[in-house]
Structure formats: structure tokens, C-alpha cells
């Protein structure tokens, strides 16, 4: 046995989750472009070594054909497999929407529960690295609007591992979103056997004055802002959804019921984003308790620009989160 790691990156967390899932369950198979060892174990090396360990039959490098990749995952899932399909970057998921939305999400319902589609689609995105307009979009809001799918993303490596394992073990189709800019960011590893239950948010920092609600990369920003504001005596609670849809309304509403104020943050474009649903739900259910309107922070209403100065301006920032908190505190 190797000595346990002191820190792991997000990338290592994803790798560990798939490794454990494959070791535990023969029905777990991986499909995606370049994912087998002969092809380098994935563009981010997230699957490196897995084909050596579990065989090329279970870890399959595919043609560049996202409809075929997702379709193959769906078909195998219908008869008992638990495929993990990798869509190299989230923008490429646009070519596989039919398979995901019209099929993966609906087959359980349309078959009256006779079949189910326990697939996990891993994909990655996020702006800030100069990848430009077609390689940086966060599209989780689309999938959240599709009944029959679960959408998850993690804000730290430990959760990343526990959440991906939960997705693979879940009986529903899951979209698991990874983040490009933080792929090599590290954090403490989870305990062995750790799982993040789907549909459960986590309070990552307790606070009294205001709730910041988000998921994925902005959680670290929210925690940084919370730390800074604590020095001024402002007590910020940070709620990490982890499962974006269906989301944990109970934890969110409990937090805001306590603080009376909320800011929602995500890196996707603000308009018609996930934040709108969360904000609406909070207003609907806690209208009388709210001391101020819920604020939303997101990125600009524009394609992701290439030029570094524009990209920085486009993306949500800690300054935006801080400004929204201060404004909401009044």
C-alpha cells in the first residue's frame, strides 16, 4: 500500500473515483476520446492507467463522435452497465443533446419504469484560460431544466471524489461537471469510502448575516470573500449546492431563513442561469423573512471573449461577490 496522500488535485480525485468505481463494480465502463493509455489516458490524464488496470474493453477510446459516445453509454446502461462517458469539453455536448435530453433523461419515464439509464457524463469547462468562445461555456442551466437528469459539480477535491462516485453509483443519468481552470488545484483527500450524497448541499462556512449560495469554482471565491469580510465583522454563510438539480431546497431555505439575505453566484452567464431558479425559490418561500432582495452574480451576457483583458472582465469575480454582499447588506 502507498502512504495516503496529504493533498490531492481535482484531477486526481476524479481519477481515484473512477478507479474505485471500476474496482468495485465490473459494470462500470469508461467511454471517451483518447481516454485509454495508448492515447495518453485522456487530455487531462484523468483516466491514465485505468485501461492498463481494467483492460481496453472497459476503458474505450472512441472516434470523435459524441452522439455515438453518449448513445453507446445509454444502450449499455439499459441492460445493466454503468457507463461513464467523457465529453472532452462542455461545448462539445451541444452535438449530443438529442441523446442526453430526448433519450437518457426520458427513457425511464417513457418506458414506464421498465428501463433506466444509469450513466454518468463527465465534462469540463470554465473560462479564464484563454480558450475562447467555443471552449469555455458553462451550460448546466440547460440540463437543470430537463426533468430526469441530475447535475452535479464539486467545489473541492474531496467532494469531487465523493460526488463522482455517487453519480456513478446512482440509478439516474447524471451530468458531472469539472472545471478547467482549477483542475490542478489541490485540497485534503477524503476519508476512504467517502460519498457526497446527491441532492444534498453543504454549508461550507457558517455565518449569521448573509448566505452566499453557489457551486463549483465560485465556492472558493465565496469563502475567500467571507474570510475577508469576517475581519470587518460581517458573518457570511457559504452554501455549496454540489447537486445543481434537483437542488437541495431545504438546506438553502434553512440558511436564508436564518440570515435573511442571500447572494447567488455561478460562473455561467447570469441571465436565465441556475441562479434565477434558486433566487425565485427563495423569494417565493421566504418573502416575508427576507431583509433584502436576493442578488445574483454571474458572468456577462456575451460569448466568452478570447483576449485576456476581456475574458477577465467577462468572468464573475470575487469583487462582484463582495459588491453583491455589501449591496444586499444595505
Amino acid at each position, binding site marked *: 500500500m502507498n502512504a495516503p496522500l496529504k493533498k490531492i488535485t481535482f484531477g486526481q480525485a476524479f481519477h481515484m473515483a473512477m478507479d474505485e468505481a471500476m474496482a468495485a463494480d465490473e459494470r462500470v465502463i469508461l467511454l471517451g476520446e483518447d481516454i485509454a493509455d495508448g492515447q495518453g489516458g485522456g487530455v487531462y490524464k484523468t483516466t491514465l492507467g485505468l485501461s492498463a488496470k481494467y483492460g481496453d474493453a472497459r476503458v474505450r477510446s472512441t472516434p470523435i463522435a459524441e452522439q*455515438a459516445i453518449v448513445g453507446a453509454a445509454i*444502450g449499455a446502461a439499459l441492460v445493466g452497465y454503468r457507463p461513464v462517458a467523457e465529453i472532452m469539453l462542455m461545448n462539445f455536448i451541444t452535438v449530443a443533446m438529442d441523446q442526453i435530453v430526448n433519450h437518457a433523461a426520458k427513457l425511464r*419515464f417513457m418506458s*414506464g419504469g421498465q428501463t433506466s439509464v444509469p450513466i454518468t457524463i463527465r465534462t469540463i469547462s470554465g473560462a479564464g484560460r484563454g480558450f475562447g468562445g467555443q471552449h469555455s461555456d458553462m451550460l448546466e442551466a440547460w440540463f437543470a431544466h430537463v426533468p430526469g437528469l441530475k447535475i452535479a459539480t464539486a467545489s473541492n477535491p474531496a467532494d469531487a471524489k465523493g460526488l463522482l462516485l455517487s453519480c456513478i453509483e446512482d440509478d439516474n443519468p447524471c451530468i458531472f461537471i469539472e472545471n478547467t481552470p482549477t483542475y490542478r488545484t489541490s485540497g485534503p483527500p477524503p476519508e476512504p469510502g467517502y460519498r457526497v450524497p446527491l441532492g444534498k448541499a453543504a454549508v461550507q462556512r457558517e455565518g449569521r448575516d448573509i448566505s452566499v449560495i453557489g457551486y463549483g469554482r465560485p465556492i472558493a471565491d465565496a469563502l475567500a470573500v467571507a474570510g475577508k469580510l469576517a475581519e470587518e465583522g460581517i458573518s457570511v454563510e457559504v452554501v455549496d449546492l454540489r447537486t445543481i438539480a434537483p437542488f437541495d431546497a431545504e438546506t438553502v431555505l434553512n440558511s436564508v431563513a436564518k440570515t435573511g439575505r442571500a447572494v447567488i453566484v455561478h460562473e455561467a452567464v447570469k441571465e436565465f442561469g441556475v441562479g434565477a431558479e434558486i433566487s425565485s425559490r427563495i423569494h417565493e418561500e421566504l418573502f416575508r423573512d427576507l431583509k433584502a432582495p436576493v442578488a445574483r452574480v454571474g458572468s456577462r451576457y456575451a460569448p466568452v471573449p478570447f483576449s485576456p483583458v476581456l475574458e477577465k472582465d467577462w468572468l464573475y469575480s470575487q469583487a462582484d461577490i463582495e459588491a453583491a454582499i455589501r449591496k444586499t447588506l444595505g
Partner: protein
Amino acid sequence: MTETNVDKDLLLDIYRRAWLIHQADAKFRAMITTGQLQILYYSPRGQEVVAAAMMAALRPDDYLVTIYRGIHDQLAKGIPLKELWAEFAGKATGTCKGKGGPMHITHPETGVMVTTGIVGSGMPIANGLGLASQLNGDGRVTVCCFGDGASNIGAFHEALNMASVWKLPVIFLCQNNLYGEHTPYAMSTGAERIADRSISYGMKGVRVNGNDAAAMHAVAREAVARARAGEGPTLIEAMTFRFNGHLLGDDSHYIPKAEMEAAKAADPVPALRRTLLETQVSEATLAALEAEITAQVAEAAQFALDSPYPDLRENRIDVLDVEMLDNREIAA
């Protein structure tokens, strides 16, 4: 050359399936035109023998993926008639409790895994079933049915290429009825023959007269054998025709009269019946078989009409694996 000798019992089996399709189709159309059923209906009339001869080459545990125009495939594969009918009627006793409807028939017990309404989308999923069989080593074969028009969409290309590269046990059965909705083959398809598209994938491709039971079955049997032996997929282009237009109600105005008349003159179901009579099956045998099936169809139709509608709770289950809250209650 493909071996086209098919024995009498087999032909009779194919006829039994074809007649079942023929009768079910007639009854569906009658019920729709009289208002007993209100559904979009894509008649398979004219394509019976393609399905009957194909499915007669399969084991019961082989898989089928088909499309909106799919009752011929489903019935030939052995789906229970009553549950199928009840599903078309949106009843709780349907294969899918009425939730899927005619375009989304699933019945895993008879291998009917997916019925899709999105042109081309069944092919990638069929690969996944084939992949599972390959991994299991269970020798199962997946048949994926689609039309000529579907061979022009991206999913076809991606799926056939992957199936070939991975040598999946999948049979891509293109039922070429020469029209996609109202658009004729040549207006939409660059290839002279869809079977030739197999070259793009290094796959075996065959064009066959799908209305000729013996020829169709021989091609099917060969493709099944290839798939079971781990030798990979086949693209079959089965030439056929649809007699009732795209959707019931379509008057086929876009089909030259002579073309339609020639097709009807070559109607595959009576043709197969004539062949059987010629090969020493008696009129009495056929009549008895036909009567039995006709009675089963009537019974299934009645079963569907008599069955109850599903409970409204069905809208909150099978969405995910747990029951959903009522979102009206959340709002109100």
C-alpha cells in the same frame, strides 16, 4: 451469392408474423378513422415482410431498437399484442403504463428496448446494447431499424462507424421505402444505394428485396450469424414501400400514381401467401392461422378499450428513481 433456400415451416412462421402485422395495422387504422383512438399513426403496411423475415432470424433474447413506424418490428419480435394495444390507447395496462405511447414502445422481456421518434437516434443506442453483449459474451444480437431518410442524418454515420471499428454485434436494418415523409429518395440522398454507404465504415453491406421473404430472411440470417460469431455489424438495405403515406391521413399526393400502383401490385403479404400455397401449405391451414390472429387482434383492441387510464401519480414517478414532489403544491 446469399443462400436463399428457406424451408416451408420458416416461411409459414414469417407469414404468421406478417399476417399479425397486417391485421393489427388494419385494426389500428379502422379504430383511428372511426375515432376510437386519437393518435399519430405511422402505418407499416407494405413493409410487413421485411420485419417478419428479419425477426424470424433472431432469438427471443436478442434486442430490437426501432422507430415511430415500428409496430411491424415490435410485433414480429414478439411483443404481446394486448399490452402494445393498451399502450397505443394510453392505458395503465400498456407496456409503458401509457406514459410512452405509440412512439415510445419498450418491452424488455421480448427484447424491445427502445422505440424512438427522433430520426437516426436509435443507432447510437443500439451500439450500446451491442457493446453490452460483446462485453458479456452472451451472443446476443441487436437489430436496429430505421428508414432511408434516416441514413442522411449524422447519428447514422457516427453509429455505423463506431459499430464497425468496435466490431459490435449490431444489424443496421434500413427499410428503404423510398420516401422520407414527402421527400423522395433521390432528392435527399446522394448515394445510389444506401448499402454502398457501408464502404465508409469498412462494414459488410447488402441490398435486398425486403418484400421477398426468402431473400430477406437469408440476408438476415447471414447478418445474424456474422454478429453472433463476433465478426461485426452489417448494414442491410431492404427495399420496400409504404402504402399509407407517412402518417395516417397523408394522401400520398407526392408519390407518382404508377409508382404506388406497382408497389401495391407487388404487395408482399398476399405474395408470400401465394408462395406458401404453391409450396404445399393448404388454404385451410392458412385460413385457420389467419382467423386465430384476427381474433387475437380483436381481443387486444377490446382489452385496450376496456383498460383504465393511469393514475395521475404516474406523472411523479419514473422521472427519477424516487417520487417527485408536486411542483404545483410548491407554487401554491
